[in-house]
């Protein structure tokens, strides 16, 4: 396999063989190692010394179901630490098939000098971006697929990334004209913008098949894995994930009092009934939309949707739980059509819906809009693409917005906005938000999925649960697996080992695999330590420790000693 290095200073590309030390790393694991070894931890996240890394997981391109995520990473302008965010679409699968372990974007182009990186099989080149800059991600994807082929994969930023705003993410196209798969979190779109890279276009590989050390071993495990997913009561064709999408949990999170409402001031939203997955499915099907669609080729879970307006015109594909929470209940909105419109705007500008929803909530608390008033909220959001000062502020994320507007109730940890679970009512997620080297990120270890193991409202067992989940998340993010595909692997790690050993012939045992997953966290924590992050950064905001959250009237009260010792057992 090979690495593609792109020097934006010199406008040069070069291929390298993968050094032996990186051979057993993929996705998040490879990103963590490259950051620690090649990026000065105290560097400016938007400066030339930072590196933006695109890497498929270890199973990318193999044909295993739900294993084609693309990891993107860099030093984050929000957390100031190591960041990885991943997206569906066709990029992970395509890079894996091409034998490209990582694309590393280095340096920084002269200001205003925008480029597009085109990868065609074994060659790559930087091309002038021409008339593409200034476009949102929808137009960018359309233009580039018209130019380079409808089957190509486009990875792009919108206006928010071009302006280097901290809330900017990176958009990846999928099969059959699909848009809006986002590596959304941590401001990675701003890093891409800082490099002067508007987009990457990857031609669809033809006739490329990855080699297997033991194809029979791999195929048997991959088949068993897919079958286990199909049989899972949550994930199969009769499961709630497939039928109702990620929005299937709206009602449960709301009922448990953890649904962010009006800038995290309540955990129960009175208008949640029309935000639920059940309602989303009903409306979508009645308008001729789609449910149960895929974000990655061959995924058997298929939890996406295509949400239509009342005239049966597609607004967005897909409307997801986190977006519904942060752009819906968190802003006092109970109308899915309005949430979908805000979602589309974020997707087009290239903004993380979590970070932006939180920033809008903070701005409304400062009096710049009204909770529940779509018009005032959409006017605020539209200013991001217009590049006004207020728009740039909101696009910079929740912490920046709170600091400038004098609001202390900012739902963020380690510089990054919290996702759709208030940590006061789901305390395991609070531990993850405040201790993960990734900052407040549910994908770094989501305790909602383990709610039966530990009382979500209690403090007992939360640190052990969070650590376990953080190790699992590191595994998922390094193999390219979707986080929803974790149940069969947790139940039987041998399935993963057989897939990896069948693909690479490493002869890994459970201990090797466990050590590798733990090492990802150790590497990221070390990068963050060298970057200057301390206990003062790894914390839940003070107001959440003092201000009881209705309806359970609970604060975040996991003892500081527990929070400080999460990684003692790593």
């Amino acid at each position, binding site marked *: 396999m090979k690495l593609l290095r792109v020097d934006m200073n010199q406008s040069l590309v070069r291929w390298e063989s993968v050094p032996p030390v990186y051979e057993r790393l993929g996705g998040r694991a490879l990103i963590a190692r490259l950051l620690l070894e090649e990026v000065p931890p105290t560097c400016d996240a938007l400066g030339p010394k930072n590196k933006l890394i695109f890497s498929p997981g270890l199973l990318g391109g193999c044909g295993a179901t739900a294993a084609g995520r693309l990891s993107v990473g860099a030093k984050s302008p929000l957390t100031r630490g190591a960041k990885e965010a991943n997206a569906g679409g066709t990029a992970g699968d395509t890079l894996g098939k091409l034998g490209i372990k990582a694309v590393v974007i280095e340096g920084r182009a002269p200001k205003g000098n925008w480029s597009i990186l085109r990868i065609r099989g074994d060659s790559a080149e930087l091309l002038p971006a021409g008339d593409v800059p200034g476009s949102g991600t929808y137009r960018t994807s359309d233009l580039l697929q018209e130019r380079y082929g409808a089957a190509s994969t486009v990875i792009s930023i919108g206006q928010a990334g071009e302006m280097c705003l901290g809330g900017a993410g990176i958009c990846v196209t999928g099969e059959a004209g699909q848009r809006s798969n986002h590596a959304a979190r941590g401001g990675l779109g701003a890093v891409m913008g800082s490099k002067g890279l508007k987009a990457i276009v990857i031609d669809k590989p033809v006739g490329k098949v990855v080699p297997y050390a033991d194809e029979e071993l791999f195929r048997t495990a991959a088949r068993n894995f897919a079958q286990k997913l199909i049989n*899972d*009561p*949550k*994930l199969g064709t*009769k*499961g*709630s*994930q497939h*039928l*109702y999408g*990620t929005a*299937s*949990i709206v*009602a*449960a999170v709301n*009922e*448990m*009092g953890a649904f962010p409402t009006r800038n995290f001031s309540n955990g*129960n939203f009175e208008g949640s009934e029309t935000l*639920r*997955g*059940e309602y989303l499915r009903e409306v979508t099907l009645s308008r001729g939309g789609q449910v149960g669609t895929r974000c990655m080729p061959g995924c058997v879970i298929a939890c996406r949707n295509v949400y239509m307006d009342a005239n049966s015109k597609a607004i967005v594909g897909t409307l997801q*739980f986190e977006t519904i929470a942060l752009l819906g209940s968190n802003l006092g909105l109970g109308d899915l059509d309005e949430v979908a419109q805000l979602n589309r705007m974020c997707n087009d500008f290239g903004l993380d819906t979590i970070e932006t929803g939180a920033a809008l909530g903070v701005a409304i608390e400062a009096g710049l809009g009204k909770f529940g008033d779509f018009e005032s909220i959409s006017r605020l959001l539209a200013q991001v693409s217009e590049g006004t000062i207020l728009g740039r502020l909101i696009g910079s994320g929740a912490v920046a917005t709170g600091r400038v507007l004098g609001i202390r109730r900012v739902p963020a940890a380690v510089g990054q906005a919290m996702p759709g*679970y208030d940590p006061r009512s789901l305390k395991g997620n609070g531990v993850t938000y405040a201790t993960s080297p990734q900052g407040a990120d*549910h*994908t770094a270890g*989501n*305790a*909602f*999925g383990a*709610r*039966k193991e530990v*009382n*979500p*409202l209690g403090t007992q067992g939360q640190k052990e649960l969070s650590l376990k989940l953080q190790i699992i998340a590191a595994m998922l993010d390094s193999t390219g697996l979707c*986080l*929803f595909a974790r*149940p069969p692997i947790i139940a039987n790690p041998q399935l993963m080992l057989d897939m990896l050993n069948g693909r690479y012939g490493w002869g890994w045992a459970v201990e090797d695999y466990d050590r590798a997953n733990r090492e990802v966290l150790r590497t990221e924590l070390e990068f963050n330590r060298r970057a200057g992050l301390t206990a003062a950064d790894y914390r839940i905001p003070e107001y959440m420790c003092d201000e009881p959250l209705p*309806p*359970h009237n609970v604060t975040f009260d996991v003892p500081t000693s527990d929070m400080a010792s999460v990684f003692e057992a790593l």
Partner: protein
Amino acid sequence: VKITVELFGQLSPLSPRRQFLDLADHAPVQDAAILLGLNADEIGLITINGVQSEMQDQLTSDCRLCFFPYISGG
């Protein structure tokens, strides 16, 4: 005890989504599930007044009982 019950997701086609039940004093959650004809194997989460609960937990007057199918956070 008089209680409000709500069913979510795939559980609701079995009976109306929201119902009001009158059960014996100190009745456990399981009694409500049986009365509604729910298959215990299809229930992934139970809450009473928003607090995670189990089949053996006692129902209280005017409580709100919710049954959810298996769901996954993400």
